[in-house]
């Protein structure tokens, strides 16, 4: 796809990424992406979850090395091997998760790592420290006590301290990852004032957000990424909300798996008023036999937390869960498994696999009781179970004893799916089952979902990939900020409509 011609801009580029590609374990995260950053210019980076925004930023901030393509600083190729090196070259990043040192003062945090100090013994000159911190905050017109502890600041204030810190490093490029995700509207305005200051000082800003109105308020140009590819770069004035959303999602559906044309049976899972403070609120839904219920939303919408509560991984504060009409108490995962609920967790590394164990041992972990006589594991039974799982899901390994960490992302994911299937659930929760796996494996997962539905399983499919949920679901719930805001018919809705519900206003 071609980019539209850039409007003529006087200033020369500070930082440029040219045809950058990056893969992780064989999965393309960025393919041939280019980005040009100019002084005093706010460049918004837009795309769905998993479009490659974070990877691109991390490449610019020195956290990832590129596989191919080049990074140019002031027109000269440069290699950024670490965040430290990026910072030395004037590239700073404000992460979404801020990491202040809470018990140091504001001034100490701002000048962390380059404190004004005597050459001998590195004795810190506290007065110079304070006045330098004061100067940096003044440049941004921020009013904060420099001797106060970081601990007492709000998220928004910590953010401004981080920005001052970047200025202290003479940052010429500032990368901001969803800076307004966790701050109030009033604070957003204050942040925008700070950004205006930075623009005046000639800093180039990369701004990532999911909030549409913000983009049009502060961005000068917008680069849209989709599936790791560069869709295009546009002047912000030339786009509107509708056309931007269309660019973000507008891909033709790829691998077409036929939708589960399964006969729908009785309601198997009913959730009523499920709540957990700070995560999700008053969520209710039903799933029937042979039905695929899609749940989508942006990151942080509370989807994962909500289904984790159904599976007993986190506790809910209130609400009722019924399985086949009978109220059940789910206090831990074993309870959920006993009631026939299985779940494929979102984060394979953190919650899915035991990397130190073999493929076979990972697969049978949730159903070891089925191949035991008393406390003893029957090896033959276990091998048979694992073998069946490997065949059903076509898992490619050198054998059941291979270390699970050596498998590709797609095969690792199949091991996690096989594990939950071997426990024989009638209700299966799939949380982002295709994240980080290649297109071929995605197709196989889609086919599996359809097949399970035909077998009469009830499926809850949580996914941020809109084409995926729209294709696979019989009904679709949209969550936003912890609540279900819409129930849609996937055959009648569009990605644009879903995004309209999902986006925070």
């Amino acid at each position, binding site marked *: 796809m071609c980019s539209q011609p850039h409007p003529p801009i006087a200033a020369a580029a500070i930082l440029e990424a040219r045809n950058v590609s990056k893969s992780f374990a064989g999965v393309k995260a960025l393919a041939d992406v280019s980005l040009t950053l100019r002084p005093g210019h706010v460049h918004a980076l837009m795309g769905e979850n998993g479009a490659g925004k974070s990877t691109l930023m991390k490449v610019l901030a020195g956290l990832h090395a590129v596989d191919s393509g080049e990074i140019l600083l002031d027109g000269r190729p440069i290699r950024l091997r670490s965040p430290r090196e990026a910072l030395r070259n004037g590239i700073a990043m404000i992460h979404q998760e801020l990491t202040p040192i809470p018990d140091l003062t504001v001034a100490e945090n701002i000048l962390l790592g380059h404190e004004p100090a005597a050459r001998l013994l590195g004795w810190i000159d506290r007065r110079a420290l304070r006045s330098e911190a004061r100067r940096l905050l003044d440049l941004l017109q921020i009013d904060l006590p420099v001797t106060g502890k970081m601990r007492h600041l709000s998220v928004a204030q910590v953010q401004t301290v981080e920005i001052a810190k970047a200025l202290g490093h003479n940052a010429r490029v500032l990368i901001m990852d969803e800076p307004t995700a966790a701050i109030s509207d009033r604070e957003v305005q204050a942040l925008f004032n700070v950004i205006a200051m930075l623009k005046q000082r000639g800093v180039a800003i990369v701004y990532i957000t999911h909030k549409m109105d913000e983009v049009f308020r502060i961005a000068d140009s917008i680069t849209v990424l989709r599936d790791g590819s560069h869709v295009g770069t546009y002047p912000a004035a030339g786009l509107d909300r509708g056309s931007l959303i269309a660019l973000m999602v507008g891909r033709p559906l790829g691998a077409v798996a036929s939708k589960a044309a399964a006969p729908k049976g009785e309601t198997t899972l009913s959730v009523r008023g499920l709540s957990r403070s700070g995560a999700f609120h008053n969520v209710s839904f039903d799933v029937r036999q042979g039905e695929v219920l899609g749940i989508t939303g942006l990151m942080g919408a509370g989807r994962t937390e909500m289904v984790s509560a159904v599976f007993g991984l986190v506790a809910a504060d209130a609400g009722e869960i019924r399985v086949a009409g009978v109220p059940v108490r789910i206090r831990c995962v074993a309870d959920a498994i006993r009631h026939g609920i299985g779940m494929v967790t979102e984060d394979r590394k953190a919650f899915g696999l035991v990397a*130190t164990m073999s493929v076979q041992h990972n697969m049978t972990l949730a159903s070891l009781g089925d191949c035991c006589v008393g406390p003893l594991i029957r090896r033959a039974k276990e091998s048979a179970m694992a073998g069946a799982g490997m065949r059903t899901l076509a898992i490619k390994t050198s054998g059941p004893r291979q270390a699970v960490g050596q498998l590709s992302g797609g095969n690792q994911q199949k091991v996690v799916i096989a*594990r939950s299937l071997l426990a024989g659930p009638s209700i299966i929760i799939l949380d982002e089952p295709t994240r980080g796996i290649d297109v071929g494996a995605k197709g196989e997962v889609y086919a599996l979902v359809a097949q399970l539905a035909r077998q009469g399983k009830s499926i809850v499919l949580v996914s941020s990939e809109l084409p995926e949920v729209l294709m696979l679901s019989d009904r679709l719930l949209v969550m936003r900020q912890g609540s279900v805001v819409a129930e849609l018919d996937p055959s009648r809705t569009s990605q644009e409509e879903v995004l309209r519900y999902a986006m925070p206003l």
Partner: protein
Amino acid sequence: MPCPSETGPFGRCGTAAAMRRLLRQFGIVIALMLIGAALAAATPSFFTAANLINVVRQIAINGILAVGVTFVLLTGGVDLSLGSVVALAGVIAAGFAHPGDYPVVVAAAMGILAGTACGATNGLVITRGGVAPFIVTLGMMTVARGLALVASGGKPVSNMSPDLTRLAGDILGLPVPVLILAAVSLVSWAFLGNTRLGRYVYAVGGNENAARAAGINVNRVKMFAYTLCGALAGLAGVVLAARITTGQPNAAVAYELDAIAAVVIGGTSLSGGVGGIGGTLSGVLLMGVINNGLDLLNVSSYYQQIIKGIIIVGAVWLDRRQKE
């Protein structure tokens, strides 16, 4: 470097890789054989039946402790209270083992029970209280030592029935402590490899979150590991008391460190999930052979400590290098 998935164990990766694999799996056994051969060449008194039996006799107590703490380390935890628990169990057992007092079985059982109680307490505070194992068992190290001093009045508990001291004797020319170690090892090895709970020990240490998501009761697995470790420390305490024919409240200081060192030399990861009884026994044996060899070579005990320390760190460093 792992082989490409398509090739077999000795497939196209070639002999160099096969050698590396062999070394990784049996590196410690090979080291043991090399050191043994060197010692046999250096001193005629090493490779004699009497000396070899002496070696295994000396490692028995450390071995029992090491097997117990292997379970804890596999779950990703640590137990620093072992030495104190050994002393407490010894004092308790000795207190019940005056001649004509109680049957020796009762005395031994009381010692083991004391150890089990300490281990269970560790497990309880770690799982229910959520306090780090390092801190909890550090506390138990002091508490158990204090209990041993209280129970004994600070003095060695002597006048032990010969029935109990027989636990440190020989049967058919083999030291009883060695037979106990063999039995404990065999059962533990079979348990870890063949039971559900054994598998869960590895899963919890490998990835606690994933274990929980697979429906495993993580707390119960940890409880089990600490309690078993305590029970085996109790057993070690009874054996030690039998060997020195007294309950010594000041005995066994820092035994936990020797045990942990042996386990780690044997390839069990301190972060959990990797390792096993075979490695632990090799580690225990390696430390025993080196101790014995240095004694035979008349190396001063001051230098022995230095050498031992270097070997511990060196062995783990080599192990890490091989795995990368």
